[in-house]
């Protein structure tokens, strides 16, 4: 900590030492205007930056038709790799009062002992609504919007219906402003469809009119679905983070923090939604010509090449050949269908499968078809050529391309193929092979149908969702819980044997009291007293860990409190054992209550 404070002190000292030298550095001045041409209902920002000085006094001039509003001064000190520089920027808003060409004469700036002059600034103020350049979009909802963000598009001319038209959408964001994008560019028309845009556009940086822009580029394709002349535009939602203006000092004087720098430092940012809109483009969609349209034309528009290959090229009759057809090029691949294999009795064909692989973008790629074909005759010497037709929009005519025939060798099988023997097709050789148009011979060897329906189920439910299974699982867990609790209980009893003894005593007492109660009800004094004596001996025997029958009146008197009611009851019981004693029901009631109270107190 002390070391850090020392370093900070040294840095500060060095700064103090060097700052005076800055005054001796060369003083330069630069002026910049946010726009060279702007409408009369807008304003432009004039920034005068004086480098190499710590203070500057700018003497503004008066220009007929213009008003200047000061927007504060900001100063900056940079220390980069030991090089020091300072600059002061003064911002003014120029408010035009009427359209016309304006010239701001050189301004005098007094910096230290020097007086320097700016260059002459010229610009044009146009009438209202005359500021947009072609193909340049604008933002909605902010002042000085064209400065912040706009969209540019590549030019589009007329195209055919269904044709895939590549387009690049470029969104420009001025690096002076902080902005977040909330959406991808959205196409505003229902006559043209756009391929999905990537979530990760190409990010570059471009300089336009002396301003640095961050540029997001999307390369995509458009395709007209309705003929006619359509106006299209793109919109993009963004949020602009504007520095929040701090509250100015109420005392009127200049404050230490009265600098625009502190607007962002202390004031934070306020978010403002903006909509960046592209310029409107004319997209003319025309119908494909009907004259000269080939029969096998499926709607492919672009520029394509056709290649075919076959494997194996030496087979026996009935053995499948995998025919690969590749159509490569640029265009609307969704309309590219496989060329039809000529229908002849010499060939058995299966419907092809297709697989598309795009290249740099969706506009360019390769579509690959695989088709299983089976030769039925050994006289065949080649796979016939295949034809593919498409429309070339550049030459504005239909084209048909034909593949070269593939030479093959078909031989008779060594063992003649039985009619019922399943033919192994290419489909069974490759995972992505063809699906037969008709049931293949192998299907005939299916296991025969069942003669029992099987148990009916309204719904196919997995076992783990069935009530019976869940009940079984629940029972198991309950059992395990029971075992767990039982084991805990057993272990608890093993650790505390007195608990078990206490439980036993309580149980015996309950039984004894029940018998005593019965004797009391039957008004049998002898039995009542005998049971009372037995109960006292039993409980005290367990308590003192001696044989209960061996406990005498003397033991009770010696070991228990003399005030206990048990002595009286035990004494009466002793007497009754040797003589006939008759107790009234009231006394029996009193004895039984005392006995219960005293013995429960011992537990």
């Amino acid at each position: 900590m002390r070391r850090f404070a020392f370093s900070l002190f040294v840095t500060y000292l060095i700064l103090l030492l060097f700052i005076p030298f800055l005054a001796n550095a060369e003083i330069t001045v630069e002026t910049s205007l946010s726009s060279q041409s702007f409408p009369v209902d807008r304003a432009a920002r004039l920034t005068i930056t004086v480098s190499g000085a710590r203070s500057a006094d700018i003497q503004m001039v008066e220009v007929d038709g213009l008003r200047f509003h000061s927007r504060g001064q900001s100063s900056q000190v940079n220390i980069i790799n030991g090089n020091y520089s300072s600059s002061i920027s003064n911002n003014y808003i120029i408010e035009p009062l009427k359209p016309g060409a304006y010239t701001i004469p050189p301004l005098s700036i007094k910096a230290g002992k020097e007086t320097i002059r700016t260059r002459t600034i010229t610009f044009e103020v146009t009438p209202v609504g005359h500021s947009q350049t072609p193909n340049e979009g604008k933002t909605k909802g902010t002042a000085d919007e064209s400065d912040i963000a706009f969209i540019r598009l590549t030019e589009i001319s007329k195209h055919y219906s269904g044709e895939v038209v590549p387009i690049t959408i470029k969104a420009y964001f001025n690096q002076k402003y902080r902005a977040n994008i909330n959406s991808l560019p959205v196409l505003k028309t229902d006559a043209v469809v756009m391929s999905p845009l990537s979530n990760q556009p190409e990010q570059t940086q471009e300089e336009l009119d002396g301003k640095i822009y961050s540029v997001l580029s999307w390369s995509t394709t458009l395709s007209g679905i309705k003929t006619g002349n359509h106006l299209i535009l793109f919109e993009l939602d963004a949020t602009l983070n504007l520095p929040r203006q701090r509250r100015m000092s109420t005392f009127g004087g200049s404050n230490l923090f009265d600098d625009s720098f502190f607007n962002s430092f202390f004031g934070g940012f306020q978010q403002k939604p903006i909509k960046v809109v592209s310029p409107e483009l004319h997209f003319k969609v025309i119908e494909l010509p009907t004259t000269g349209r080939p029969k096998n034309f499926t709607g492919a528009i672009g520029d394509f090449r056709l290649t075919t290959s076959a494997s194996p090229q030496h087979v026996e009759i009935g053995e499948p050949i995998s025919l690969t057809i590749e159509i490569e090029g640029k265009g609307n691949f969704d309309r590219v269908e496989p060329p039809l294999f000529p229908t002849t009795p010499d060939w058995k064909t299966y419907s092809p499968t297709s697989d598309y692989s795009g290249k740099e973008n969706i506009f360019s790629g390769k579509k690959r078809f695989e088709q299983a074909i089976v030769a039925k005759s050994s006289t065949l010497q080649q796979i016939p050529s295949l034809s593919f037709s498409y429309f070339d929009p550049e030459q504005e005519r239909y084209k048909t391309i034909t593949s070269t025939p593939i030479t093959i060798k078909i031989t008779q099988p060594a063992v003649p193929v039985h009619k019922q023997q399943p033919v192994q097709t290419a489909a069974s050789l490759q995972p992505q092979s063809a699906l037969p148009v008709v049931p293949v011979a192998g299907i005939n060897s299916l296991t025969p149908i069942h003669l029992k329906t099987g148990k009916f189920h309204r719904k196919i439910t997995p076992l783990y969702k069935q009530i019976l299974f869940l009940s079984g699982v629940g029972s198991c867990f309950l059992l395990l819980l029971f075992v767990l609790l039982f084991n805990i209980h057993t272990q608890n009893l093993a650790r505390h044997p007195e608990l078990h003894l206490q439980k036993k005593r309580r149980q015996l007492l309950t039984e004894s009291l029940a018998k005593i109660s019965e004797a009391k009800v039957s008004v049998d004094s002898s039995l009542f007293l005998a049971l009372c004596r037995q109960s006292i001996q039993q409980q005290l025997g367990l308590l003192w860990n001696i044989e209960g029958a061996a406990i005498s009146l003397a033991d009770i008197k010696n070991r228990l409190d003399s005030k206990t009611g048990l002595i009286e009851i035990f004494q009466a019981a002793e007497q009754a054992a040797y003589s006939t004693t008759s107790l009234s029901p009231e006394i029996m009631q009193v004895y039984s209550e005392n006995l219960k109270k005293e013995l429960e107190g011992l537990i």
Partner: protein
Amino acid sequence: MRFFRFSPQFFTALLCFLLFSPCLAATGTGDDSQNLFKLGNKAYSRGDFSAATEFYEKLTAISGYGSGVLFNLGNSYARSGQIGKAILNYERALRLAPTNSDIQSNLELVRKESGLFPREYSWSERFFQLLNLDQWTMAAFFFLVTFSTFQIVSLKRHFSVHTRWIITTACFMFFLLSLSGAFFRHPLWQPFVVTDANSSLLLSPFSSSTPTGSIQQGRLVYPEKTHDDFNYVTDETGRKGWIASSSIESVL
């Protein structure tokens, strides 16, 4: 309270009604089911597969899913060239009778003859595919029951620490293994089957989208998300794309 007192005769009658009413209902629908099943079998035997398909479909609509009916329905569809529907019904039948070798062999044959081969599986995937979801679940239940029984028995009978440790560890390990198998098989329990012969996987969920390739009928696909009438699916070979909801049918 008197209102709730019923005579023993009332309870006897109620019990009889509750016991026999499902049987009576079953007898009614049972006859219809058997008739439809026989009609379907007859149509199949004479080679009228479309008629057989109609009878079996009607039977399924009336009585629900029966493994035998679904198997025969699969056969009828396979014979009439509707591979997607055939595989769909074999898959359904396998959910009800996972060990039935007839269903397994016919499903394998149809898939093989149609070129519907799955991708190459890793050894662990192959291991977990030895049993289906229900079988793995049952295995987990078996080890749970074994462990519970052992715990109950051990309350009465004393086992050595060594024995207890071996049995407990074995039950726990096999239970976990079975549970893992069930978890692995669970996402594969509810596939969809491509039943449209001209299906394609699309780049985007709209019909004019660029297709990334065709997908054969009978392919098992697993939907991940839905958008309007399209499902984003992964097929058993690992290919992904959007497919029209009308082109696929759920096994369950």
